[in-house]
């Protein structure tokens, strides 16, 4: 019941779309009715096309995203927490690197890596890296120094200081950055695949556009949107479990 109420707007929107298109108020050639889009999705799954493209896209997005997280979070925390002086040195270069546009980079990376999977994963990782790094730096810098001082007073080592104080205090901000960059990863991946790939959801979008198969285009876009929602949902679930735990322990510690 609460699920229905919470998501009523989606159902109303879909019903509106269906109705407007069925009764030809908007051109069904350009906006095929939703049921037809669903039927197309089912068809594509039966043909096995969609599965292949989804796995191809995920095999690029997930490694890129994970790579960025694995590099970005420690880098940001270290720069913000430990090596504040180095952070001063690296501030401008990091800003410049973060402004290096992934599509611009695509043209250059292809010269080095060829046209396989590697440049796409690199692009995704590069795009995801910067929100994570900056939010981690921010999180580590914004830790209340009184907490750190009291931690030092209790004789915590540097590693323990990061594990017990800096990390729990910075985690919400870090996590916000990670979530943002998950959104970025799909966004940029689809665009990159549209520009030059022979598989993946973005490639499928491009091909259906060129063949003017608008029902397939809508089917692909719907799948992309729900893939994004699903991944975000997974990440949030993970974070809520994880952050709640952290926050509880944090509160206990300060009590």
């Amino acid at each position, binding site marked *: 019941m609460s699920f229905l109420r919470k998501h009523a707007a989606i159902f109303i929107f879909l019903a509106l779309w269906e109705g407007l298109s069925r009764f030809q108020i908007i051109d069904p050639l350009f906006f095929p009715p939703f049921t037809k889009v669903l039927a197309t999705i089912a068809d594509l799954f039966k043909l096995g096309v969609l599965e292949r493209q989804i796995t191809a896209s995920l095999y690029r997005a997930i490694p890129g995203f994970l790579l960025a997280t694995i590099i970005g979070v420690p880098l940001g925390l270290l720069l913000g927490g430990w090596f504040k002086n180095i952070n001063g040195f690296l501030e401008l270069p990091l800003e*410049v690197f973060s402004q290096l*546009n*992934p599509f611009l980079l695509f043209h250059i990376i292809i010269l080095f890596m060829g046209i396989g999977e590697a440049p796409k994963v690199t692009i995704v990782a590069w795009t995801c890296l910067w929100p994570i790094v900056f939010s981690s730096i921010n999180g580590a810098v*914004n830790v209340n120094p009184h907490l750190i001082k009291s931690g030092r007073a209790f004789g915590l080592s540097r590693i323990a200081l990061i594990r017990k104080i800096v990390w729990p205090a910075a985690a919400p901000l870090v996590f916000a950055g990670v979530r943002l960059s998950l959104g*970025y990863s799909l*966004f940029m991946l689809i665009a990159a695949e549209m520009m030059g790939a022979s598989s993946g959801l973005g490639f499928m979008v491009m091909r259906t556009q060129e063949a003017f198969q608008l029902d397939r*285009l809508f089917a692909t876009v719907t799948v992309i949107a729900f893939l994004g929602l699903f991944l975000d949902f997974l990440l949030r679930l993970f974070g809520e479990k994880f952050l709640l735990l952290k926050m509880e322990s944090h509160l206990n510690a300060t009590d």
Partner: protein
Amino acid sequence: MKPLSLAAPGFPASSPRKSWSRSLWPRWESGLQKYGVLLFLLFIWELSGQAHWVSQEIVPSLSLSLRAIAEMWIQINLGSHILISLGRVITGLVIAIIIGVPLAFILSRVWPTLGERVDSLTRVFGLINPYCFFPLFVIMFGLGETPKIAVLSWVSLWPIFFGSQAAFRAVDPQLIKTAKSLCCGPWAIFWKVTAPSSLPSIFNGARVGVEMSFFILIAAEMTGATAGLGWIIHNAGAAYETDRIYGAGICVVILGVGLNRFLHLIRRGFLAWSDYMASPWLYAGHSSPKPVNRIILWLSCLIFVLVFGLGLWKIILGENLIIARP
């Protein structure tokens, strides 16, 4: 950074007069700290070209890239392309703000129940990649600038919308009650309480939006445009003119950093108190947020408006720009 002085406060450490070299040194030091690594990287880039560590075909040296910029500036009117690109981003941003902020206000303050109901729908919309709908936009709006600006507005609309919605929802009800008890009308409450308390978050949303739309702009210009930096890069990539790719890339990076700096400046100039509110311990003791030079602030606002106006004018004019290398 101040050198540590052993003298008691109130007594000058050694000589009261500083020689100019000593007073200049800290500035040098901070400048080196800021720009040192970047300059070093640029130097390595140039050196790698001059010493033939890497092929000039793949990585043209810095001087070659700069020469390409100068060449493009003279031959293919690079300035106009830059203005057009910036004009598109800013137009998209303005449209997104005009739609997003009032919409968020309606959905969170005027009619909060409706806002909660459509929450899931807006989240789905925020995830839809407008780039996929580019051909559909072309069908709906025709060729030309409108589909591109529609894509850019869509991209920056959602961060702004979510940012402002969160902000409007988080306005402290105590403050509103207090304002009401002081007999403030709805307008006064809006201008004195709601707007100031939500501006920082709206601004953050706008920053994310600008960044995203600047990324997407290059892609949108690569697929279907007749002007703009993305178009230059795409053409140069197709013709294997690597020096032009790097040259235009330098322009993109400089513009991105400039835009970012401008937004920071605005934040520091007009919303400095919000940083203080967010983490007051950063300003504990002596250090308070550094005030921004008012002249620089207003000058950069003026430049921003000028660039926007010129870019829009060029877009509307639809100048014919040739790009081929003679």
